[in-house]
């Protein structure tokens, strides 16, 4: 029933394997990156191919402020993690909440842009190829930001119900990998939509 004993070689083994949280998250990031790549490829392929309707250069304005907010949130989450590894829980919470705020501002910015595009410019997902590819790509990204924010909010709930401890720092690092990924994706999306595609 028990294992056949397999001999230990001379000297003790130094056996260290990567942490499963990190490896798992890298795999998830790879899968998500593949999904985004397809939407980006579709976007690039269809640049200039809309038969009718508003064109990017007529209606798009690069959301610089909101981009800065989102990219800054990568910095704030990094600082938050530095605080929690040192055990400074209250400092961690401030920077964590700031991250959520910055992410929320970004989403607000997206909503504002879409409101303007739909109701003032008449651009919807069904208007033309530009509308289709724009809303699906930016929308897919916004969906990932939303999922990330929900996870970050859940962590803050754990903090405020005093269940979060310093030992959880590594798991939060894994979560922050996802958040950084979302930011990197935005850099790509921003470049493709507001720089290349215009």
């Amino acid at each position, binding site marked *: *029933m028990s294992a*056949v004993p*397999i001999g230990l070689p001379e000297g003790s083994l130094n056996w260290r394997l990567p942490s*499963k949280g990190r490896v*798992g998250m890298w795999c998830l990031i790879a899968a998500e990156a593949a999904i985004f790549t397809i939407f980006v490829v*579709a976007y690039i392929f269809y640049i200039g191919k809309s038969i009718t309707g508003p064109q990017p250069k007529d209606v798009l304005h690069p959301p610089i402020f909101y981009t800065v907010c989102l990219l800054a949130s990568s910095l704030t989450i990094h600082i938050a993690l530095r605080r929690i590894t040192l055990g400074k829980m209250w400092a961690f919470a401030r920077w964590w909440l700031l991250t959520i705020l910055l992410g929320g501002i970004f989403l607000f910015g997206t909503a504002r842009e879409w409101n303007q595009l739909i109701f003032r410019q008449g651009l919807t997902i069904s208007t033309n190829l530009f509308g*289709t590819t724009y809303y*699906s790509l930016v929308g897919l990204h916004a969906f990932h930001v939303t999922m990330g924010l929900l996870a970050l909010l859940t962590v803050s709930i754990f903090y405020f119900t005093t269940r979060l401890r310093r030992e959880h720092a590594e798991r939060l690092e894994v979560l922050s990998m996802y958040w950084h990924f979302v930011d990197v994706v935005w850099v790509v999306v921003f470049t493709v939509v507001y720089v290349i595609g215009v």
Partner: protein
Amino acid sequence: MSSNTIALTELPASRPLALRLHEWVTTVDHKRLGILYILFALVFLAVGGVEATIMRLQLIGPHKDLVSPEVFNRMFTMHGTTMIFFVAMPLVFGFANYLVPLMIGARDMAFPRLNAFSFWMSALGGIFLYFSFLGGDGLYGAGSAPDVGWFAYAPLTSKTFSLGHSTDYWTLSLLSSGIGSIGTAINIITTILCLRCPGMTLGKMPLLVWLNLVMAALVILAVSPLSAAQIMLLIDRYLGAHFFDTQAGGSAVVWMHFFWIFGHPEVYVLVLPAFGFASEIIPVFSRKAMFGYPVMVLATIAIGFIGMSVWAHHMFTVGMSAGANTFFVLSTMAIAVPTGIKIFNWMATMWGGKIRFDVPMMFCVAFLFQFLVAGLTGVTLAVAPFDWQLGNSYYVVAHFHYVIVGGILFTAFGAFYYWFPKVYGKMLNETLGILHFWLFFIGFHLTFDFMHIPGLLGMPRRIYTYEPGRGWDTWNLIVTVGVAFQAAGILFFACNLIWSYLRGKTSGNDPWDAWTLEWSISSPPPVYNYAVVPVVRSRRPLWDLKHPEDPDWRYE
């Protein structure tokens, strides 16, 4: 759960059925999930086989009217979708789930709850797809089984040409199982990279583990594009988007690119684990170490990489430029090199050995012959001009069934006979196994050898009937006759599984005198797998134990 903390291999059989079923439904144990995947696959194998039988009976002669064109078109769509997504993938994931943790000396997969979630998402996909049959006919297509082909080309899948919900059943069920597949792939990679027992470096893992690692990487890179394309299709159908709307400037060819960027690596997802089974079984039954282990690993990685670059050989007829066609000819032929190397290495493993033809080895030897043929017909299809004649014909259908049935299913049968004793502590019956093998072998060759010929004589695929006087009649008759033998073979297999589960001969820990870690523990394994975490020094830890005077680690 309290009943799981008892360290016994068998719990008293007097527990109520409801409790036992509940344990199965809520399990996070990789061994039970593995069995669930495999049972699920076997059920759908029977269903997919019925769909194939209906098609073959319709095509037994020209101008038959056993079923209407609408029903036939649903049959080939459901047959393909079922066999790929709800038979082959679950088989692959089921065996990976059961074997990988055992073979690396681990207690379970890295994320047991994700494992259970992934299985149930896949199961949901299968059930949802078949619910479409109950959707009812009404206006043709309004809620009925999908009939757009398993690769669902645009614009046939647009709202214009596919009214009703049949296409949506296809899309949503595969999105669900896609989530399951990606979850399982994340689990497999993380398990292999993070949970190996001490001493088991990447260069000392069993080849089956390597092959599943590369398979999982391919799933992550390939299934995601399919999910992306399916989201685009849903947006087209329900939000009025234009990704594949050719009247608004969208492109049907873009769907093809996205689909085949998934579709081609998908076949490597299916075949790499089959190579894994062969790589474990052939050495044991030849009584020799695997010849050229490092080369086998490199060849696997090469297949993984090159496999991501060949997809447009499914699109040679869509009007790509001569340059593009030529590139894909080269990449497709290139992949034949590492694949051929593997065949040679298996042969070299058998060379100079003492081959025992137990049932697992019979299936693997048949695999070698059949996979050779399948690979060679693939090389002929890689020649783009030849593909301009053979593409979308029964030659292609014969080729891919030769790979999937003659290659993958045969090694899977071998895996069943090889590892069933480990899972249940009982041997599968040898006589029934030999009958299963020969009946299925005859049926496979009757059907799929002769199926090449109508293709060479101009018969396209996906037609519910064909014209007399084109020279296709006799060959189609022979192809259909083979189905009867295959069905008989499967019947014997099913009987063998049930009989042996109830009354099989006790196997003991290590009935085959094998060399990988799973054979060092009891059959069935205890729920915790290893009471003491093993420490290994070579690729064949049990060989080292059985041959202390001549251990592998002196030579590796």
